[in-house]
């Protein structure tokens, strides 16, 4: 199986504090990889390095075929990114948001119009293309944000708490969209605080104090920790963290 992310002993230190401490893992093409951890465990720092936004102190990682240390600009062009906190410009229209991100990700000029049309058709947003994003229902906004994040056909998309604060139905529709996207071969790297969503991942890693404390399929993790659900697995691993929440 082709590897889309290969991480080896990746470390990020701020002074004497090791935010990320020698983590190693691989993510395969087409996989939904859940990246969990308590607040302060080092998730955000690790994710920033994988997106080419932060240079590691030591160790290495290859993302979408590029070295995060020497080719961060190539990584930024070849990944997608979406978070609940920031995804679309509310004061731009649907079409303007698409055009803006197409430009940011350097989608070839000739490709933009047909892809935009295809996207609007697929989401059923043809009649809304000139509506401001802030006027859209949350569910549509989420679908649009995700579609925009993968508009440039990246090999992998990073989703940073994409469903925080979203109502239960919309949250589930979002995951169904993730499933659809992975059917077309894209790899999904996702963080979440909803433990039921951890169940939807092919594999899940749980970070504690800068290290990966566990990594396996949800079924195997539950077996290993003799837990009924992922919430219990998480609780068992994270409750003894020395730097939880600070």
């Amino acid at each position, binding site marked *: 199986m082709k590897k889309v992310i290969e991480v080896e002993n990746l470390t990020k230190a701020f002074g004497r504090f090791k935010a990320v401490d020698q983590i190693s893992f691989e993510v395969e093409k087409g996989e939904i990889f859940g990246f969990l951890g308590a607040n302060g465990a080092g998730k955000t720092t690790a994710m920033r390095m994988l997106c080419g936004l932060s240079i590691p102190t030591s160790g290495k990682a290859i993302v979408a075929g590029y070295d995060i240390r020497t080719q961060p600009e190539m990584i930024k062009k070849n990944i997608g990114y979406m978070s609940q906190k920031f995804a679309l410009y509310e004061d731009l229209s649907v079409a303007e948001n698409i055009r803006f991100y197409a430009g940011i990700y350097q989608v070839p000029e000739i490709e933009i119009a047909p892809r935009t049309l295809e996207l609007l058709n697929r989401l059923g947003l043809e009649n809304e293309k000139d509506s401001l994003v802030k006027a859209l229902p949350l569910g549509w906004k989420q679908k649009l944000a995700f579609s925009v994040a993968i508009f440039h056909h990246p090999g992998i998309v990073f989703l940073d708490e994409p469903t925080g604060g*979203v109502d239960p139905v919309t949250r589930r529709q979002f995951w169904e969209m993730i499933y659809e996207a992975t059917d077309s071969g894209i790899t999904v790297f996702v963080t979440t605080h909803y433990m039921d969503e951890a169940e939807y991942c092919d594999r899940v890693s749980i970070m504690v104090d800068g290290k990966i404390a566990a990594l396996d399929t949800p079924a195997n993790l539950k077996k290993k920790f003799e837990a009924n659900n992922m919430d219990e697995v998480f609780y068992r691993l994270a409750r003894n963290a020395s730097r939880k*929440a600070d």
Partner: protein
Amino acid sequence: MISCKNISKKYKKVQALNDISFEVKPGEIFGLIGPDGAGKTSLFRILTTLILADEGFASVDGLDVVKDYKLIRERVGYMPGRFSLYQDLSVEENLNFFATVFNTTVEENYELVKDIYQQIEPFKTRKAGKLSGGMKQKLALSCALIHKPTVLFLDEPTTGVDPVSRKEFWGMLKNLQQQGITILVSTPYMDEASLCDRIALIQKGRFLTIDSPQKVADSFQKTLLSVSAENMSKLLTDLRAISEVESCFAFGDSHHITLKDPTSTHKQENWGPQKKNINDIDLTINNLKMMLEAKNHINVVIKKIKPGIEDCFMELSKNNL
């Protein structure tokens, strides 16, 4: 302790709150459960006298939110959803500031905040802006408590917080409740509902229901089944294609489904007997299992389950479109 009668609030075209009425009893932990944009923050801001409702009356601790706004502000503690302390003041400077604003001292009410504040005291000289999320949350709670409020308003205190820290935070709330403080707390996490004495499920400015978490769950009318099989993604599609299945949603490691009322559907040939009896549900489960196995599903497990608050929310929100 808190009373709302027919509160409505509109921002231009958006009806943020639509005829909201409820009461919070003294010493209660009352939860407002609902997604972003449901109107939770608007309700908080009306009750803490920061904005005016378009219609309706509200009182807090026996005081009118319009006429007695100054008195209310002295008596309540408010932790907004967005971190609203002074980022460039240190931890202890923030706490002292809030104590002074409320005409008191940290020493006078230290007992109340002690358990929470002690956890961040080692960092008391650090600037608030440099704190981690969990520490900011504890400082904000300490500042909201330092004048010994009678009512505490907490707007999404656990959003974006990991499950372990969330459990800890709720532990702190239970301790505050023991000390006689009434708490109105909002959250988008449905699993936190069971930690409240009573809850209101809120969506699009309306309350879907108000009751104890147990009673909300008991009021679920339909039979709820959990279904799992080897291929969960295909299972979701196949379940939805079955005409007798009314709703089907993923719930962690299983899918939850409700069934259409058999008396209201015409197509019943493959379905269980119309007469309700104790074997009815077993028959239904067997039929369902056979249908799924006919579609090549393996390891099919179907169980009748008790609904959780999230099931209730999804069922109730269907009628609030």
